[in-house]
């Protein structure tokens, strides 16, 4: 954005000051995320840049913490931290719980969003408020309420319990994204399909589904990341068996601060970049499909 020729010096200074301020805020937002990446390749077990690293000495870098994360314990390694396979166990658990919760949440959420978007839906506001409530209530309250209830049902420390709780937390995101895709949905397309002889199921899979698919997938990704990143509920409902990545990180920060945490954090940053790109591409595709943007 070039400044017009008539701007005064004062205005120019003001404008560049404003740009510098914004650049600082962007730095504040993004720097903490990337600062951990080089640190995860640290040779020493400390959380800071060593002199060797600053000199870009290849000996100062190593993959030893990544090996530990993968559960490979070298015998000659200096024993500074406990080498466990908990990180890999956590990864498997996180994916099991995350994917199950995502499938449940996406199915329930998509069907509900289809109902909510119908013009004849009664009590729309109240129902919407109920469906979105898991997103609104602070996690600590959810965890407490669900803890008491699950204790009665014998679901504490089970995978079922965690999956059900994470499903409830993920559904609002699916409902919101799919409802958003359905606004401006041309209902004539459904009538056209039916008049051409398509039954309900065929119409759904051949006409409705392709159009709302981008919304469904981004909703599913939101639900997945919600479950994948969730730690409060896992802390209270999970037993020792249900170690997930965030829970292991939580334990890692509180007990033995080891650079393995940084390795896992780096992997999670890569995952978030991947998810962000996918959601962004899907959003553009959806807008193009619905004719909002060409």
């Amino acid at each position, binding site marked *: 954005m070039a400044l017009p020729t008539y701007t005064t010096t004062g205005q120019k200074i003001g404008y560049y000051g404003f740009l510098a301020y914004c650049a600082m805020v962007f730095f504040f937002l993004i720097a903490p995320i990337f600062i951990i990446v080089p640190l995860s390749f640290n040779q020493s077990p400390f959380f800071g840049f060593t002199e060797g690293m600053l000199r870009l000495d290849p000996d100062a870098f190593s993959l030893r913490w990544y090996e530990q994360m993968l559960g490979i314990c070298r015998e000659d390694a200096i024993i500074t931290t406990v080498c466990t396979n908990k990180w890999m166990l956590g990864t498997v658990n996180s994916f099991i719980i995350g994917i199950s919760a995502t499938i449940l949440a996406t199915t329930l*959420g998509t069907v509900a969003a289809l109902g909510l978007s119908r013009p004849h*839906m009664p009590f729309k506001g109240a129902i919407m408020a109920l469906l979105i409530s898991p997103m*609104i*209530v602070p*996690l600590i309250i959810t965890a407490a*309420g669900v803890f008491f209830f699950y204790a009665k049902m014998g679901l504490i420390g089970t995978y079922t319990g965690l999956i059900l709780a994470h499903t409830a937390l993920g559904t609002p995101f699916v409902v919101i994204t799919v409802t958003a895709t359905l606004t401006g949905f041309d209902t004539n397309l459904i009538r056209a399909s039916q008049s051409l002889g398509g039954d309900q199921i065929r119409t759904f899979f051949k006409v409705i589904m392709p159009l709302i698919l981008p919304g469904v997938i981004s909703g599913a990704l939101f639900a997945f990341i919600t479950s994948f990143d969730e*730690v409060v509920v896992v802390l209270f409902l999970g037993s020792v068996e249900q170690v997930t990545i965030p829970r292991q990180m939580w334990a890692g920060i509180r007990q033995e601060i080891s650079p393995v945490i*940084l390795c896992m954090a780096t992997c*999670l940053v890569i995952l978030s970049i991947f998810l962000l790109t996918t959601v962004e591409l899907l959003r553009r595709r959806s807008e193009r499909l619905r004719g909002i943007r060409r």
Partner: protein
Amino acid sequence: MNQSAKSEILTTDGIPLKISLKRAERLNKIRAFALVLPLALFIIITFAFPILSMLLRSVDDKQINTVFPKTFEVYKQWDRKDLPPEELYASMFHEILSAEKLQIGKASTRMNYSKSGWKSLLKKSKRKFKKIKEGPYKEQMIKADKRWGQIEFWKALGEMVDPITFGYYLNAVDLKYDSDKNVIQQPENRRVYNSTWIKTLKVSVLVTLFTLLLGYPVAYLLATLPLKLSNLLMIFVLLPFWTSLLVRTVSWIVILMQKGIFNSILVWGGVIADENRMQLIYNQTGTLIAMTQILLPFMVLPLYSVMKTIPPTYMRAALNLGAKPMHAFYRVYFPQSVPGISAGGLLVFVLAIGYFITPALVGGKDGQLIGHWIAYHLKTSLNWGLCSALGGILLVVMLVLYWVYNKVVGIENIKLG
């Protein structure tokens, strides 16, 4: 012909159109409802019901009344000036002996909240009372443990006589019942919650303010830049939004530690001496810095979506009419962006007030918010009534704020990504 058209329009199968339409509409309503029903039921069972029953738990004092039903009946007649009469001792004696061990344990935990010492007293009594064969019981009970002869212990039971209590809510704001169910303040050394509530509000207000100060210019820049460039810069806002909360918390620990990056840069630059590195983490400062960065995207996104709808021509018109840039901004642009400020502000405030993970990890001792106490009573002290009461108050605050949010922005206008 003319007459019938005047009275009613019929469909081809002879049913009046009005009725036929109504029927079709009802069918549509049922269909729409049937689609929503599975999720609605799921949320009610696994989410809404547990939270409601938690709220019931916060006023529930039934358990103790089922263990000592007769004792509390007799208790109500006691004048609470001198030691209780023999009748009260006798009923207490019999009910301690006849109750199951587990029930006694639960009841004594409850009694311990009102006066510590009850738990051990009951445990000991349950064992010793077996030797007492017959009454009168008063003397023998006091002989078994002299605490039975102390009026404070008896008085402490006074707040439990009703099956429904607001005692936990009073505890949650540093008040309590005395033995006559008058509301009094907690003793000084047990007042912890009011200061935490105030701290929670203070931190939430500050975080909202900081995110506004940092987020407003950025949202303005994003809304005024050409779309291609702003989409690119948007990644800076969206990537943190998608990155794990724990990752961002870990990074702040790495940056703000005493031996961390920020302090090291300051030492290297000669701003501070090596021996007085700043304590930026494990205190309230750490909580504030980390929470501001974590919640900043929630401020920028609503602001951006509002600013995007403000036509840039308005500012140009104001400048054209001779306004100074600052003046034009303040009088023309700013008022139109206020809906974005209230939306983002409320969202950040609501999220901040219930935060638990980040303060727990970077807050140290004085950076803990109210979520810390909820977790503490849930998992460590097992005072579930108080835990529920704290949660209940927090929930009411949230609901009021969301009601405001709904009035200002509309809950269905929440946008993601």
